[in-house]
């Protein structure tokens, strides 16, 4: 039983990380129907910038907590600038291009960002400074740390804040209008360019936050870390119904739980035939099954023809 609880905790934390990244995907997708494939790379840049800034400040003698906060702030700012730049350079000129075109630029940007990061930070794995004191808890035989609790809380709070932003503010209203129909929204006096830029900037800030969380949790970083993470998070976003904030959150957590429980139990249930080597498959299989019955994801609204 303690194993089951432990697996739930594992899945929940992993899922919250997916969710935090998935929120960034869904934010952009919800407003302009674009898969920002480079989002995983934004997360990576967020982590690496934090390492550099916090590492430098800690060396300079600043208390770890403050150094961490400073690192977070700088990396959020850098990523916001990066998100704004991405939108400006790679996506805005293509707003009226065929639908696959921005997908290719996104892939191109993702390659560019990875290699820039490799030139700046090198090829080696980097260690992320321990920003939070490692406080461990034990409950009914299950181990968990303060970092894990914080990750779950941060992603839940982030989602709530985003929901507030979308449904309770003027910017949110403009975003919803843009997502419904950009042409009409602009006739109603919504500055489409500004709204879309805002979506990218907010999405990228979330990416930076996610990057710092990932770094704090695993304490390692690498210039290619964004790719798989981005992919999983994207899967989570689609699972929950892409474009839907609560869906992204739940999709992420669901994905995390599926992976943890799948790795934990399916091997024994199938006599070792489908063990943890098929961990990645469980997630995709659930996705396929869900989409077969609910083609717009678990919580996705029935959008019209996106293709």
């Amino acid at each position, binding site marked *: 039983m303690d194993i089951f609880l432990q697996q739930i905790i594992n899945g929940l934390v992993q899922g919250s990380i997916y969710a935090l990244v998935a929120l960034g995907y869904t934010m952009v*997708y919800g407003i*302009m*129907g674009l*898969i920002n494939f480079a989002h995983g790379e934004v997360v990576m840049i967020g982590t690496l910038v934090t390492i550099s800034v916090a590492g430098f400040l800690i060396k300079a003698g600043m208390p770890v907590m403050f150094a961490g906060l400073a690192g977070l702030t700088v990396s959020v700012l850098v990523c916001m600038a990066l998100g704004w730049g991405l939108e400006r*350079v*790679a996506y805005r*000129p*293509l*707003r*009226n*291009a*065929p*639908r*696959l*075109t*921005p*997908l*290719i*630029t996104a*892939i*191109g*940007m*993702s*390659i*560019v960002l*990875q*290699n*820039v990061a*490799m*030139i700046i930070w090198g090829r080696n794995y980097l260690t992320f400074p321990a920003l939070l004191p490692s406080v461990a808890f034990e409950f009914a035989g299950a181990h968990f740390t303060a970092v894990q609790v914080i990750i779950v809380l941060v992603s839940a709070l982030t989602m709530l804040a985003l929901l507030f932003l979308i449904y309770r503010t003027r910017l949110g209203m403009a975003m919803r209008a843009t997502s*419904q*129909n*950009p*042409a009409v929204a602009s006739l109603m006096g919504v500055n489409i360019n500004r709204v879309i830029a805002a979506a990218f900037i907010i999405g990228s800030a979330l990416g930076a936050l996610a990057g710092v969380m990932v770094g704090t949790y695993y304490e390692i970083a690498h210039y290619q870390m964004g790719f798989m993470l981005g*992919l999983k998070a*994207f*899967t989570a976003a*689609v699972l929950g119904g*892409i474009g839907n904030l609560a869906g992204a959150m739940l999709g992420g957590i669901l994905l995390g739980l599926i992976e943890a429980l799948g790795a934990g139990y399916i091997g024994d249930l199938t006599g*070792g*035939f489908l063990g943890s*080597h*098929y961990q*990645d*498959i469980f997630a*995709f*299989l659930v*996705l*396929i099954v869900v*989409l*077969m019955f609910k*083609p*717009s*994801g678990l919580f996705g609204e029935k*959008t*019209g*023809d*996106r*293709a």
Partner: protein
Amino acid sequence: MSKWLNPRSAFGLTLIIVALLALPFVAALGGQAWVRILNFAILYVFLALGLNIVVGFAGLLDLGYIAFYAVGAYTYALLASPHFGLHWPFWVILPCGAAIACFFGVILGSPTLKLRGDYLAIVTLGFGEIVRIFMNNLNAPINITNGAQGITLIDPVAIGDLRFSTTTHILGVSLSGPQKYYYLLLALAILVIVINLRLQNSRIGRAWQAIREDEIAAKAVGINTRNLKLLAFAMGASFGGVAGGVFSAMQGFVSPESFSLIESIMILAMVVLGGMGHIPGVILGAVLLSILPEALRYGVGPIQMAVFGKMLVDPESLRMLIFGLALVLVMRFKPAGLWPSPERKRAAPAAGASHG
């Protein structure tokens, strides 16, 4: 088709054919490695044209195309290597590979028929990963694929005593292994191009186009969208299967790491960069994207040395950086691809309106 048949084009065509036949000898002047690079370029032309049927003609965004390539490659590897002790000739295996890949195309295609756009993309991506993961793990309980270790000592293509892996001398001309594969690939590629051209202008091709532009309208005019979409998956998959078989024979070794997601993305990039749905464009895209990284590999280092007098940035990282930038810039200035089809060029500005 008719464009190719008038006399002026016929002359052009002859010129192209002569150039293509002479190419491996010209390339060999720069070393056999260039012939090998050319071979991979043709292999990618092959794959890109296969994917073009799915993405370009029928408008189905497929991010797991590499799975069919993998199926073809493993079919060849298992039927012509000491792994199972089978050594079938290539002209039996290639059609087998195509058929098996085609079967997979239908199996993987059928659950995705209801899905649109990005949902389809992520599901096909999932399928691609599932196939790769299975190949990586099917060494237990029964050893089928030999897992991550891959399959070695795969037979090269051989016609009678003419083995494609070694250099032979015919009529005083010495023909290296890669050069022979070049001609085999060229022949297959021409076959695929002809099939593509024929398909494009057939009833099926026009029906696909109708589905791509507006699926609901296509259904309304009586097109069986389900069967036609499956057909697109199946056709695309069989091309992938054949390409995989040739890859297997040429390499003599397959392992699952050759069939990762990034390969699928690469092939998609070729199709889109060249000009979706437009056959010459897709060929251009495939040739460019497969040769560009190699050309950069030779160019980046020496240029840096010449300009700055020292290596500022590691040539390898700069190479990929330039590659990524090229993708972004081409799309920025030619959103419909480098060589889009005439009608697509016209339609391009309107496409954005569907982002509802």
